[in-house]
């Protein structure tokens, strides 16, 4: 069959993606817009009416102590989680990419285990490991003399968030390793050899040859980790539940409590929208940086 005109063919493209667009609209766009519109209304499960309150809920949340505390914890949680995930993943990748290292395949498999394990199971196991009475972690630390008596890892205000960050780091650093190792393999051997011939030492070789090749990947990984960590819920929910008090309450936990303990959907929607805006900023940077690379 002969295609009548170029215009026709062009139009058919929109039709092809329409089914996918519809799915995206129903499962993503609609909930998002529903949530944003809900954030301007006072709505609890007990009151079927939506009462329009404009920006009042935003104002109340942003000036409230509990929300500010959750916001502060989210910043600490995200910054340190991403920092350690990246650093450990990065160093492991550099080490594993050395040909001198033996049994690299086995090491890779072992290191990938935390990432393959479902977050909920990993968190439950860590919860038991942290336990002051039954936990293996305290037992080991006491036996090798690092601490005198068992520490309340997830039960103390000072340690709760740190303990959650450790678990998050443990879970996600293998992914960093995978990305960066893949990227390291794209560094041309000839360039490295040329640098060595020119008299570059290990550090100079890394700075001039390796880093420029893997820098874009590192940027992407850090952005992705930031987005995921901002939204991460499982670790804190399982390990500390946001406690003691509200000392490890991050935004996702705050939203969960507002929605499913207090049944205050309006407030939960407002907090979700604020979290959405924060995540959207990082996502925009991420999309721009990846798209920008392609255009060049």
């Amino acid at each position, binding site marked *: 069959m002969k295609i009548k005109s170029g215009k026709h063919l062009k139009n058919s493209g*929109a039709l092809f993606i329409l089914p996918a667009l519809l799915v995206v609209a129903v499962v993503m766009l609609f909930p998002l817009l*529903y949530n944003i519109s809900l954030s301007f209304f006072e709505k609890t499960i007990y009151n*079927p009416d939506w009462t329009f309150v404009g920006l009042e809920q935003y104002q109340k949340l942003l000036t409230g102590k509990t929300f500010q505390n959750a916001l502060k914890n989210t910043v600490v949680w995200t910054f340190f989680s991403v920092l350690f995930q990246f650093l450990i993943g990065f160093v492991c990748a550099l080490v594993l990419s050395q040909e001198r290292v033996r049994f690299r395949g086995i090491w890779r498999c072992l290191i990938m285990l935390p990432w393959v394990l479902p977050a909920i199971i990993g968190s439950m196991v860590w919860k038991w490991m*942290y336990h002051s009475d*039954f936990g293996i972690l305290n037992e080991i630390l006491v036996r090798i003399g690092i601490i005198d008596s068992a520490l309340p890892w*997830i*039960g103390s205000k000072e340690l709760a968030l740190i303990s959650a960050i450790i678990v998050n780091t443990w879970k996600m650093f293998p992914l960093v390793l995978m990305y960066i190792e893949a990227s390291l393999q794209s560094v041309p051997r000839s360039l490295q050899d040329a640098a060595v011939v020119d008299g570059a030492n290990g550090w100079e070789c890394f700075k001039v040859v390796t880093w420029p090749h893997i820098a874009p990947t590192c940027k992407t990984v850090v952005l992705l980790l930031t987005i995921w960590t901002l939204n991460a819920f499982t670790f804190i929910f399982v390990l500390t*539940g946001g406690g003691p008090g*509200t000392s490890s309450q991050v935004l996702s936990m705050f939203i969960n409590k507002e929605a499913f303990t207090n049944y205050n959907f309006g407030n939960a929607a407002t907090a979700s929208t604020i979290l959405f805006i924060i995540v959207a900023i990082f996502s925009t940077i991420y999309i721009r940086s990846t798209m920008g690379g392609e255009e060049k």
Partner: protein
Amino acid sequence: MKVKKVLSMMLAGACVLGMLSGCGSKDDGGQTQQGGGTIENPEEISAELTLWDASWNENVTPGLIEKFNEKYPNIKVNVEFFPSDGMSDKYLTALTSGSSADLLSVNNEWVSTFATAKGILNLDEYIKANDYDMSDFYDGAREGVTVNGSVYALPYRAETHGMFYNVELFKDAGYDELPDTWEEFVPIAQKITEKSNGEIKGIAIPGGEWGNTSYQLINMILCSGGSILNEDYTECTLDSEEAIRAAQLFVDLYRKYNVVPESIMENDNAAGRTLFGEGKVAAFMSGAYDISAIQGIDPDLKMGTGLVPVFDGAERHTIFAGWSTVISAKTKNPDAAWLLAEFLASPEISVEYSTTFSARKSMADNEKYASDPLLINLSDAIQYGNPLPVIPQLSQIRQIMYEQIQLALSGEITAEEAMKEATAQINEIL
């Protein structure tokens, strides 16, 4: 360009849809299919029902459904079992969206929330039309399922907390039985802890899970003559002398007397049970449902049960807890669901159905309970039970209490400050 147009149209469409569904939910709650209460020829009713039940009933329910079918052969019942984790959220979401089972077995504490959210059927008409006698239920059970004067559930299971103690550890410390008051209990707990150089602690109390922690704190407040709210639920009374006295002891057991495991801030009731079963604590508070679990940890453990101690001079009160069945407001077969609810709440069947005690007063002396020395004391305690406040804000109130008592347990504020702050926060949401 076209794609952009399509996208913007979809965006606008979703916007409108969002607004519509928001406003549309105004009337949703009222659309219930009431059966009207009067049931003519119940034996001839033909229907297919779904019952959502708790996982621990898995061994019991199928047999009961067979018995039900002997009476009502034309009502087919499909049973689905769920674990307790996340159960109330799942049920609430399903009930409000109309996707739940016809009949649900629920904790009495959730009834006011489900009723206020218009997810479950008001049973007044059925009770009136069938002359259904509610007087055989314990007062605590009846009050616990009555929201704003209307009954919303038929109770089948009743229980309250008692205290479990390790008979041998108590004997080694020179005591034969549980003391009656907290003032007598503290020195016993101290003695047991000291004798073992702190290896074994006097009592396990939870401080790391909101439901369990607030529950035990409330239990102690009741034993001190205090309460969470005043009688008409308009004001919080946690800043009363009695409530503060109880909260103070709750904190002191850990911080001052050092008779509670270091892991308190991580523990829920299950952890307390494990510690008790392993002989690492001499006592803990719980219900009859924990007996088999403890025996599972150590079948040779010699344990005793008794009433939760009271504070000097205070009257004995504990939390009356229990389970009931509720009918979904959106069920297509309310009559058949009522018949099943009525069957499960009937005296003999409730004894079989309940993994602890029956919600029926007439079954208090049933052989199942009287023949077991561990059960007798726990069964005795039921008469002192008062239901938790029957208001939808209950979980929020308990969450506030939990967060404040955690701060006191971690030494950041005093028990008195915790109760006063909780009172201020709770008064704000009432």
